[in-house]
């Protein structure tokens, strides 16, 4: 048993629903009690879809348990096939149905639906989670549909350069984009355009928008692009093994990764590397100019971004990409890197090692919040959960990964991948920081008449505001509430009013860190009261 307050991932059958709902012509019969139908609203409310996910639930009740739930399963399957006339049928069960062992997949297989492809999904609900369920479902569905095309063992692997002899443009599949993924809709458009500009076609995009017949065309491509490893990793490896289809594994998020991705695609397809992708004398290639990020990042206005301390947490794909962009392309200092994707723990660990930070593999959001508090960053790049944690801690935050909220499904075009994705990332990460800076300036200029009392920034009431801190240090300011800076260590330590006042002069986004360091220093020296002298002693001590 494991105590969970908020959870990063749903159960594996929700992952299966993501695959079914992403596609056309697929229907999913889910043996599940009433109540599990809540999952529909993930699609109709969070993703704001205009149709119900293609799922028929058996919604069995307690009174059914005494009777024949297997009969209910068969009736639901028969109804769904008749009503929706799917081109492929997924059959599975949720956590409760798993316990009553009706084996709906086997039941469906025995119902005589002729040529209808039926995929029996066995997703262990008590040991696996949503992304695993999505990956497994995608793999099982494609495997079922491609069974008739399986090459004989020992058959020669297809040549990724056969497009040349066949007198056509090279083509690749984009695998992994799905509903409830982070900005998949726009990433697909961006990467399709980008590849098209180099004369490379996209054969199949799946699961997003694909039909079963499209999945059957997967082997017609020269290579696969594993766009979202969490969802497509299992399938891409299988296609590599069984069909000999090579796979591009670089995820094109950020300038460096986009260029590396394009080089990998070109080399895999035996395409000549265009001049604009070749590194110049300064290591910069011409293609980078397709994005504003490199220039904006070099511009003088960005100087203040230097060494900003940033904490990164999300799914492994986005977290690893974010850490790389933050450290190399924006000049931040990554002070924390973590993910809830245990399946990709190895990749995340090596990314963390490269950056010299301790990797955090956890699905306990309180542990993540504690790690953020400990690292005292100036910016958090995380999920919706970290956005709330950051708000509590008074730190600016940008959302980079699922789990998401309706606000992460924007109406505008906002990819994360490719050169346009880099532009979007620059804006969406730097703006919260500038808001933080604005906060600081408001604190600095609080005596100016424009900055009247009661000014509220975007951080709202939860954030410790600089003026409140000053007011607390000067008790003369009537009615001001003491600042709610959380004491990070319990103990007999106290701050003198003069020490507090000095502390309040420090920009709020590093104040937590300074407070903690100073208290640690004071404890080490056996000080009971921290005054301004102790603060400067500590400052000198830690700057060494």
């Amino acid at each position, binding site marked *: 048993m494991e105590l969970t*307050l908020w959870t990063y*991932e749903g159960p594996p059958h929700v992952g299966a629903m993501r695959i079914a709902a992403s596609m056309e012509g697929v229907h999913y019969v889910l043996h599940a009690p009433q109540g599990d*139908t809540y*999952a529909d*609203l993930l699609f*109709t409310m969070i993703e704001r879809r*205009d*149709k119900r996910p293609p799922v028929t639930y*058996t919604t069995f009740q307690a009174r059914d348990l005494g009777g024949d739930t297997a009969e209910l399963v068969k009736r639901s399957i028969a109804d769904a096939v008749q009503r929706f006339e799917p081109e492929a049928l997924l059959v599975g069960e949720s956590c409760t149905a798993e316990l009553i062992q009706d084996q709906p997949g086997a039941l469906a297989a025995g119902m005589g639906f002729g040529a209808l492809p039926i995929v029996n999904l066995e997703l262990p609900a008590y040991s696996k*989670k949503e992304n695993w369920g999505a990956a497994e479902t995608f793999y099982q569905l494609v495997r079922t549909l491609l069974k008739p095309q399986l090459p004989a063992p020992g058959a020669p692997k297809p040549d990724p350069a056969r497009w040349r002899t066949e007198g056509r443009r090279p083509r690749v599949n984009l695998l992994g984009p799905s509903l409830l993924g982070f900005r998949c809709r726009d990433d697909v458009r961006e990467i399709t355009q980008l590849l098209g500009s180099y004369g490379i076609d996209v054969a199949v995009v799946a699961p997003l928008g694909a039909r079963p017949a499209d999945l059957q065309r997967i082997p017609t491509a020269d290579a696969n692009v594993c766009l979202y490893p969490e969802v497509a990793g299992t399938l891409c490896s299988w296609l590599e093994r069984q069909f000999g289809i090579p796979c591009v594994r670089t995820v094109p998020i950020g300038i460096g990764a986009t260029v590396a991705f394009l080089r990998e695609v070109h080399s895999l397809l035996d395409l000549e590397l265009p001049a604009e992708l070749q590194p110049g004398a300064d290591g910069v290639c011409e293609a980078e100019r397709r994005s504003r990020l490199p220039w904006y990042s070099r511009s003088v206005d960005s100087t203040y971004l230097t060494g900003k301390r940033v904490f990164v947490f999300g799914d492994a794909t986005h977290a690893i990409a974010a850490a790389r962009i933050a450290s190399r392309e924006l000049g931040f200092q990554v002070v924390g890197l973590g993910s809830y994707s245990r399946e990709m723990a190895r990749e995340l660990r090596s990314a963390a090692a490269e950056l010299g930070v301790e990797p955090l593999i956890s699905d306990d959001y309180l542990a993540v919040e504690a790690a953020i508090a400990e690292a005292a960053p100036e910016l958090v790049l995380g999920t919706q959960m970290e956005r709330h944690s950051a708000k509590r801690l008074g730190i600016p935050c940008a959302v980079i990964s699922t789990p998401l909220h309706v606000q992460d499904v924007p109406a505008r075009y906002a990819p994360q991948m490719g050169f346009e994705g880099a532009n979007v990332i620059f804006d969406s990460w730097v703006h919260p920081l500038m808001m933080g800076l604005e906060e600081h300036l408001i604190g600095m200029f609080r005596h100016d008449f424009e900055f009247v009392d009661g000014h509220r920034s975007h951080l709202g009431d939860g954030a410790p505001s600089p003026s409140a801190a000053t007011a607390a240090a000067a008790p003369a300011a009537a009615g001001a509430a003491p600042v709610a800076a959380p004491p990070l260590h319990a103990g007999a330590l106290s701050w003198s009013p003069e020490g507090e006042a000095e502390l309040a002069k420090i920009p709020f986004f590093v104040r937590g860190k300074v407070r903690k360091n100073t208290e640690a220093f004071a404890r080490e020296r056996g000080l009971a009261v921290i005054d301004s002298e102790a603060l400067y002693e500590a400052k000198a001590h830690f700057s060494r």
Partner: protein
Amino acid sequence: MASSIATRASAEADLPPPLKESGQREVFCGLTSIVWLHRRMPDAFFLVVGSRTCAHLIQSAAGVMIFAEPRFGTAILGERDLAGLADANEELDRLVAQLLERRPEIRTLFLVGSCPSEVIKLDLAKAAERLNRQHAGRVMVLNYSGSGIETTFTQGEDGALQALIPLMPSSSEQQLLLAGTLADAVEDRLIGLFQKLGIERVASLPPRRSTELPAVGPGTKLLLAQPFLSGTARALVDRGAELIRAPYPFGVEGSRDWMSAAAAAFGIAPAQVASVLDPLVERGQRALAPQRETLAGKRLFLLPDSQLEIPLARFLSRECGMELVEVGTPYLDRQLMAEELALLPAGTQLSEGQHVENQLLRVREQRPDLVVCGLGLANPLEAEGMATKWSIELVFSPIHGIDQAADLAELFARPLRRRAALSFA
């Protein structure tokens, strides 16, 4: 108005038999009730003993919108727990100890049963007893089921309240007991009005502090503030309370009838009731008039969800002039609904249970102007050109009482006004 009560008993005969439906249900389970109960009793914690699905459900139903550390959580069963039950009990004890250490402010801990815990027959009543011994004097541990195989979403509150009833002290003192979660401001207002009417002692279940349970006994007259509390009503009657039969406090008419039924039970003269309530009724009707203009003549279809459907249909048809196409309810408790059913217009088609596909076919056939439905169905229906109202919003919003009648109507008028306001030509 009070005189109309007498004529109602026979009126139900005018209703055609309800459609009994059985098929896929599209309803939240009882766990969802945690989302409003934890706000009502901030010193209580709700620990679902269930699966990752349960945790995900509550998170999705609450939206990722609670900024403080939530006062609910899930003890997620893993493969190891399913292997042997003794193990699961030990694990539960360990988690509860861990939770109480982290959250010393918790006074009442609800162990909430879920589908998987019911199916594996994890005995949470026994677990609650055991935990009560372990943490005696520190926290009270209770249990109820919010499982989807047993309950639809508002039934969760019915279960939670029933868990509290055995702990209520006995008293034969004369008092009015309001059962059902109300918004604090609405509750204050209603209690104030009852006192103006001359009912001195008014208590509430659930209380605002989980440990300050009201007393119950032969002097208790029970008035249901929510229509979904069948089990709670029965259990309180078993403790000696007398159930006051009344329509529910939605709309001007329903709220007035509700309060005057209580007044009658306390022997308060109708003239006193009229002097207190009639000015409110007059004001309430005035406030309602603009909403009625939007709603009158519009056709309404209510899908079964919250158990509020029948009282809302009564309000929207009688006071707002809407035409009822179909009124669905997850289950029909004829006793608790008798007063409401009598007020429905003749010929109103009720349906009990759900077969969501068939029901949606009827919705499409009828093309109502407004559909009341769960969150999963709202956007798809909007995309088909029908205005919708989320039923869960009605459980969260302060909609009880005469003063709230216009606000309640506004919740239904807004989707229609919005559609009318939009133009992309």
